[in-house]
């Protein structure tokens, strides 16, 4: 069974890059445009992994992670967040909120696929 991944980002280009990278790696990808949309998608379905941006309108990534960790159906789902080199504070906050791993922007499709593989196993 192919693993299903939710990618949450307000930037359409990042969403596209993510979708292409993960589809090519054989995953099924669902998109959400911000944290609020992400929670809605989570309520509607089951995902094996979530890739999310942190800075987003309506609901930011940190809040979304905290919310989803409260949802029994998504407690143990791995969450990878996208961050930049400079936000080491943010990284700690995201980890404290329950994120599993991170990927530093800018990223190349290959390293995203590699990290997803690392977290999901083969």
């Amino acid at each position, binding site marked *: 069974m192919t693993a299903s991944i939710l990618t949450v980002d307000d930037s359409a280009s990042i969403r596209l890059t993510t979708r292409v990278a993960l589809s090519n790696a054989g995953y099924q990808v669902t998109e959400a445009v911000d944290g609020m949309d992400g929670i809605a998608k989570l309520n509607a379905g089951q995902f094996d992994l979530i890739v999310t941006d942190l800075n987003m309108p309506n609901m930011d990534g940190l809040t979304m992670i905290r919310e989803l960790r409260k949802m029994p159906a998504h407690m143990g789902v*791995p969450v990878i967040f996208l961050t930049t080199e400079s936000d080491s504070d943010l990284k700690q906050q995201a*980890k404290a909120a*329950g994120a*599993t791993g991170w990927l530093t922007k800018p990223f190349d499709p290959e390293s995203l696929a590699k990290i997803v593989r690392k977290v999901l196993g*083969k």
Partner: protein
Amino acid sequence: MSFPDPIAVFRTEAAELLEQIEAGLLDLNVNLGDKDQVDAVFRGLHTLKGSGAMFGFDALAAFTHHCETAFDRVRKGEVPATQELVTAVLEAKDHMRALIETPAGDHEAASEVLLANLRAAVEGAKNPGAAQTAGTVPAKTLFKIRFSLPQNAMANGTNPLPLLDELRELGECKIVADRSAIPSLDLLTPTDLHISWDVELLTAQPRSAIEDVFIFVMDEMQLDITAVEATAPAARASVKSEAAPSPQPVAATQDMAAAARAPTPASALTAPADTKPNKASENVRVPAEKLDELMDRVGELVIAQSRLSQLAGGSGDLQLRAVSEDVERLSGELRDTMMVLRMVPVAHLFSRFRRLVHDLAHETGKTIELITEGESTEVDKSVIERLADPLVHLVRNSCDHGLETPEERRAAGKPEAGRILLSARQQAGEVIITIKDDGRGINKDRVRAKAEASGLIPSGASLTDNELYQLIFQPGFSTAQQVTNLSGRGVGMDVVKRTIDALRGTINVASHPGQGSEISLAIPLTLAIIDGLLVRVGAGRYVIPLSAVEECLELSIEEDMRSRGRSFISLRDSLVPFLRLRDLFRTGTKPDPFQKVVVISTGAERVGLVVDQIIGDHQTVIKAMSKLHHDVATFSGATILGDGDVALILDVGHLVAEGQQQEAHLRAAG
């Protein structure tokens, strides 16, 4: 003082060398660039050739010479190590064994064929791989890694299994989970992680590669990485120079070979018993029969001691009592020490499965990964010997029937390589050996169909899964439909069951369709001494193995009369058939007014044994019955009691079967 026969000593030594060669070849097969293993194999072949020539095994020496030459070239980098070469030398190795066992036999034709294979493998290897070997092989380091993840790691999406897989990808890996911190069930939060892991990793990768595995959890976790030993270039140089072929005396070469062998990281990986390699010189090798002899003496001492205790107990002499108590304590300790001496790690037993699985993978065209765990678990030596055949059969079964072909596995969305896990652990006086595969699982419908077709169960009988699985161990359970050249070894599952029964062990089967099956054998740690329940029937005394005793009840005369002809007692709403041992043994005595029923069981089946008196528990040193009494099924052995009398030990399996048969008979009669 007499010296041992040099030929016998050579044979023992040669057997060890062959094992060492085989282990080296198999390791090499996993990692063809492993220079240490190339050296190890070369050294083994070299020593074997040298000693063989010295003790008149000329054919062996000549034959081994060619293999040695081939490996010398690999060692020098003239020829790369290839799968073909490893396979050719593995086959040659089996031939060497034949040359050692029957040096006078006609082996020439076989030798020629094998040498031709070897030449072909060497020639084939020389050309395509030449570029590969030009590069140097990076030195490998043995890392000891201990780690535990944050307790909430799983709730936050970290799955430890991919981490372990990643470690496995770095190199040869031995992973042991420490489950000691798992709390009791009522305190357990299922999403919390309580396990920590100990990993021995032999890898050419740097430490940072290991740290990378844990990159996401690094800050919150405990991670302890120690490089145990690096194979430094200097050390390698010295190994090389001493292993160079030279006409020096054999004994000297051997010592050096042994010295060189000890610190290689691979030996620490494959045999945990070797974790203290430098202590090897403190070991004393003793022939097995001497140990058995010593065990016999200890057994007799225990018997003499219990006579002494009886005498002292009956006398008013306080000094005698004090001495007797001392002797009792000492002989108890001696017995325990003796038991420990007889214990050997299962590593040796497990190691032979690497070859078996390698060969089976070859024959079946499957990719099979064998993982062994708990090799340092110790079991009585006689138990180990008798476990070998059943285990071989079970592993064969897993390879042959359990695991699917790579195509089938791919279609089922599984990794192509099938996995067989062979593990051993101790649990309360028993050793649990588990053979687990991730294959297709046992097909319940087919088992049922076969059992019905062969009349083992009435059609449509309602059985639990466990009862159904146990059917595969029935003698009548025909496996004809599945026999292949692999499994057609004449050992059926019923023989597995019989051997395990004889070891007083139990078999448990679990299986999930599509996910694999798991067979666990629970075997008592030792066969020589058991805890028994001493009972009296008529004038004779008998021992019932305590492990089989469920409970003891009183059988009043009225109840006995009432149940006459219908030998059943009602035990908590279930009817348990019972056997009157007085009748069975034809004692011709009157029943005691207060007879007892001892309820014994094997697995799920129970039977009551009616005895006249329960005397008490008894440390029983088991003595085998003489050949004359070999076909007496009711007894499994005998023991000598404190007063010198002989008591026979009841064969629980047989009595339960008999009782159940009687029940079936009565039921059929209405």
